[in-house]
């Protein structure tokens, strides 16, 4: 089954690459025009097109690219001729580092807050956690970032406002530089996961077996962690995975505000410049991350639900 899912994942990647290729090709303007920008003249655009190989028909370019990928060759960026594998390498590890950093704070926090909220539902605690997380989630993330920078960096001076890490940045310094971006991301994703945890648990609290457990006099916290939570995992895991995927794929705004050299900025720049090989490579990496995370989520959902493990 795992093998089947993996091959499905590969097909997904293939379809994604096709869609992205078509999408970027359909965009008005091409790499040559985008690169020359305001200084484009018909002659230079034509010459650049030829140099970039854009004068070839689309399908040929696509299959050439696909052939390269199958041999593990991502090709070169058409706007600055750099090896894409090299271009993406450090940026991808930066993206993963920030995502993991944020997830390590956010996931346990969200679960704990969610369980507590379910336990003390409708209490003052529940309400205030709700209001705070909802406020943080409904504020655009660049704005959350500005507020954090104002208080933690400019006023208090505890952490730097620039997260301009490079491969040779020592680990401790890296942690300190990435703290504010990670905190911003935490505020952005925690509400979603926390509310789903709370909802899923409350949904189960009315089930007969929980009632039974309550009647047996088991403590509330134990009921939730031992009886309700195991059955609530499916939706919670799904939401966690969605948010993990977001931490990797959707952080371009945070990257811009904190000047963090991740993949998001590269992708946006490359779309604007119609630098197709780079867009493709970034999207494939994002898609692959997503497929793997999903696979993990499905496996975990099945593992946590005995009924799904042995379908009738």
């Amino acid at each position: 089954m795992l093998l089947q899912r993996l091959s499905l994942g590969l097909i997904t990647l293939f379809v994604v690459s096709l869609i992205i290729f078509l999408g970027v090709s359909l965009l008005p303007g091409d790499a040559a025009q985008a690169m020359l920008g305001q200084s484009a003249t018909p002659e230079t655009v034509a010459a650049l097109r030829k140099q970039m190989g854009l004068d070839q028909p689309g399908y040929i370019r696509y299959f050439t690219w696909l052939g390269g990928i199958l041999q593990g060759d991502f090709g070169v960026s058409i706007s600055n001729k750099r090896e894409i594998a090299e271009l993406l390498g450090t940026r991808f590890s930066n993206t993963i580092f920030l995502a993991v950093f944020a997830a390590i704070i956010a996931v346990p926090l969200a679960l704990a807050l969610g369980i507590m909220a379910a336990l003390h539902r409708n209490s003052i605690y529940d309400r205030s956690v709700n209001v705070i997380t909802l406020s943080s989630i409904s504020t655009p993330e660049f704005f959350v970032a500005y507020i954090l920078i104002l208080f933690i960096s400019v006023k208090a001076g505890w952490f730097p406002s620039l997260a301009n890490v490079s491969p040779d940045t020592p680990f401790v310094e890296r942690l300190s530089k990435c703290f504010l971006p990670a905190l911003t991301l935490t505020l952005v994703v925690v509400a979603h996961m926390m509310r789903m945890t709370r909802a899923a648990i409350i949904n189960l609290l009315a089930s007969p077996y929980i009632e039974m457990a309550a009647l047996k006099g088991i403590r509330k916290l134990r009921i939730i962690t031992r009886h309700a939570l195991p059955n609530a995992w499916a939706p919670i895991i799904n939401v966690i995975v969605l948010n993990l995927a977001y931490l990797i794929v959707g952080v371009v705004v945070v990257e811009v505000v904190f000047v963090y050299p991740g993949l998001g900025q590269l992708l946006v720049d490359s779309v604007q410049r119609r630098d197709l090989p780079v867009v493709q490579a970034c999207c494939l990496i994002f898609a692959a991350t997503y497929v793997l995370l999903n696979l993990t989520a499905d496996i975990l959902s099945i593992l946590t639900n005995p009924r799904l493990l042995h379908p009738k």
Partner: protein
Amino acid sequence: MTDTKSNPESADAMPPPPRRNESQVTVALRELRKAPLSAKIGLLIIVTYIFVAIFAPAIAPYGESEIVGPQFDLWSDTNLLGTDHLGRDMLTRLIYGARNTVGIALITTLLAFVLGGTCGILAAVFSGWIDQLLSRVVDVLMAIPSLIFAMLLLTIFGTSIVNLVLIIGILDSTRVFRIARAVSLNVVVMDFIESARLRGEGFAWITMREVLPNIMPPLVAEFGLRFCFVFLTISALSFLGLGIQPPTADWGSMVRDTSTLITYGDITPLLPAAAIAILTIGVNFVVDWFLHKTSGLKEEH
């Protein structure tokens, strides 16, 4: 807050089943009276926003894009909340923003839920190739970074409000699909679904009578949040020049336009941000109440 005193172990207050001879309105009103304070506040917020949205031209002191004073004017009698970066009345912009932002976000979210929810349940109930097909399509759509995807599509198809709603609605429906499918899968393996199938009930019956009530709570919870994510997506797209077109006031762009002020501790950008936050909180208070009630109703099974 009245509810906190009710039996916490059984999770929720049990409303009596509605009597036949009562009209729906009476039932709704009675439920409303019994609603906790937070839900009432939430409802009040939503009603206020809807009222403001509908009657914006009547309430607003100035025209939507009228320049009435110098930029970043302070709060005064003539401009209650001061002016924005072009010298337009902040209060007026906020009021019109309700109309534009809320309307579009609501339609988009509803579209996402109808589409995503239906497909999700469909996939879970029928499983087999339908599930495979839908899931793979959704996998592909979700695997593409959504902001980039929306950017691509809007650039290709043009930036009209209809396109905006359709594109964000469809992209967001994939998220709803996954949640709906996941929770439905848990339900469809239950014995009562099995027996309904053995009785030969159709998809529609099973969905409406058995699956939907059981997956409603997480879906409703998701609705409250999706609604606010749609806001944020629109504001991000507005920033890229692909969202709502100026001089139309929308809160996302308003935050963006004034956001640098926060660096100096000026609270102007907090106003539109607060407008979004308060609505989100209001919607989610009501959502919590529904959640509460639906989980209570479930006990009747």
